[in-house]
């Protein structure tokens, strides 16, 4: 089966992002950029399915500025066979991303789409679900286990309070949760090999997608600060404070 994996270029998870002082945007100039951690899990899952003989081809797609090529190369170093970059300098919202991915699905006809449940910049947790709606595919979101059975994919989902298993007709969309797998590191020979793998570039216009934003960011600001309280000397003092000062126990 052919698998499409979506990967997003985001500020590295170790970078603490702050708003610019004028509150117009976040200050991410010169910040280290990486593949979104949930997307990395998606790539790893696709590669494992290929190693098991279930997947035959893995296509990694990213959307955004030219530099997103780096994240596609990372996905190819991990095992994706080829890449597609939907190049645009516009800031893309989840709906616009889903529309572009849907146009690529129409060209590529994958049997499975794997993507992260959310990106750690916008924290929207929407794109996979939206792509499901647009493509008419079922969705297995927040996946912690994926297996195949009789032309269907079974997805164990992380839900509030436990796990839920759903059975989805193929083609289907899976969005990854943290415990689906632990991504490997790309080896140096594979990083070199990835440089020679094919990477196509297209634009949202070529895909016939209007990416004009629907939601405008008016302002960004730091969250309300919480100030440090006091240090207590021992457990007895802690219990006393909680009972008599904070009155919470």
């Amino acid at each position, binding site marked *: 089966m052919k698998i499409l994996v979506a990967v997003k270029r985001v500020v590295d998870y170790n970078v603490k*992002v702050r708003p610019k002082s004028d509150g117009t945007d976040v200050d991410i100039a010169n910040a280290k950029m990486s593949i979104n951690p949930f997307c990395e899990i998606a790539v790893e899952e696709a590669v494992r399915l290929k190693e098991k003989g279930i997947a035959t081809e893995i296509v990694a797609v990213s959307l955004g500025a030219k530099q997103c090529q780096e994240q596609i190369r990372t996905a190819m170093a991990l095992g994706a066979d080829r890449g597609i970059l939907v190049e645009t300098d516009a800031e893309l919202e989840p709906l616009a991303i889903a529309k572009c991915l849907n146009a690529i699905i129409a060209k590529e006809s994958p049997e499975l789409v794997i993507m992260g449940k959310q990106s750690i910049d916008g924290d929207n947790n929407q794109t996979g679900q939206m792509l499901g709606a647009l493509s008419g595919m079922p969705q297995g979101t927040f996946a912690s286990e994926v297996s195949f059975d009789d032309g269907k994919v079974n997805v164990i989902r992380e839900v509030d309070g*436990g796990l839920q298993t759903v059975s989805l007709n193929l083609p289907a969309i899976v969005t990854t949760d943290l*415990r689906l797998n632990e991504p490997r590191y790309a080896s140096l020979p594979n990083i070199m090999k990835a440089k020679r793998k094919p990477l196509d570039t297209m634009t949202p216009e070529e895909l016939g997608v209007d990416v004009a934003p629907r939601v405008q960011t008016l302002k960004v600001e730091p969250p309300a600060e919480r100030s440090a309280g006091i*240090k207590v000397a021992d457990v007895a003092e802690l219990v006393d404070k909680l009972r008599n000062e904070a009155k919470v126990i």
Partner: protein
Amino acid sequence: MSILVIAEHDNASVKGATLNTIAAAKAIGGDIHVLVAGAACGAAAEAAAKADGVSKVIVADNAAYEHQLAENVAALIADLGKDYTHILGCSTSNGKNILPRAAALLDVQAISDIISVESADTFKRPVYAGNVIATVQSSDAIKVITVRGTAFDPVAAEGGSAAVESTDNAQNVGISAFVSEELAKSDRPELTAASIVISGGRGMQNGDNFEMLYKVADKLGAAVGASRAAVDAGFVPNDMQVGQTGKIVAPDLYVAVGISGAIQHLAGMKDSKVIVAINKDEEAPIFQVADYGLVADLFEAVPELDAAL
């Protein structure tokens, strides 16, 4: 304005998060309807009708909605939602699963996880793991929104008397099926609903040591959570994870044990009323947000705490 609130329920009763979402709907203002989509969900609908501020409850009672399959419920919401200016759901795993799908069916860019209502089209929401709060304005005709429950005080569960109306709108898309569910059985309260939460981090060293926290939790009537580090290390299951990628909690008392206080974790608990940190590293960032910090070895402090309660 007319607002459709998607109830979070288990067919028998309405989950508390629904009341927080109705509160957000009241902040927007307008006529508030609640959709209860389920199977044999009459009791949940009756409960929703008693919530303060609701003028009508719409019940879609159909086997297709029994397990809240996103494909079916999103199709229903998109169909009913055309007549509303706002569609609001809870920022729960269920709401996050369904609402974006409904939004795309309506060709709407959804707004996730709002923490305040500035006006009918402008909202605040956290981005970058809560390090930045963005004020966003939607230009879509219908606003599809998920609401972070801890940011809105719930409306009263009793006192209202909304009309209950049923719909035979059956959307069975037929591309997905529920297989099974494995919900953690616990006598302890649910993490997001508990008034006291005690969480363990990497400092717990292994899953067995969480037993110490369970003992303290049972004395306090608390829920037990964990940091992402503890979950990643395999100490405890992911549904215990408190943080930006896990559960967002805001209890009266949050006790962080052996948790250093990564940004990711703070994003999930920093709105708690009182925070206690127990950590042997006095430089741990968790102390910067703690009301009461105890620099101590948790393997001594937690049994002592257990004994003192």
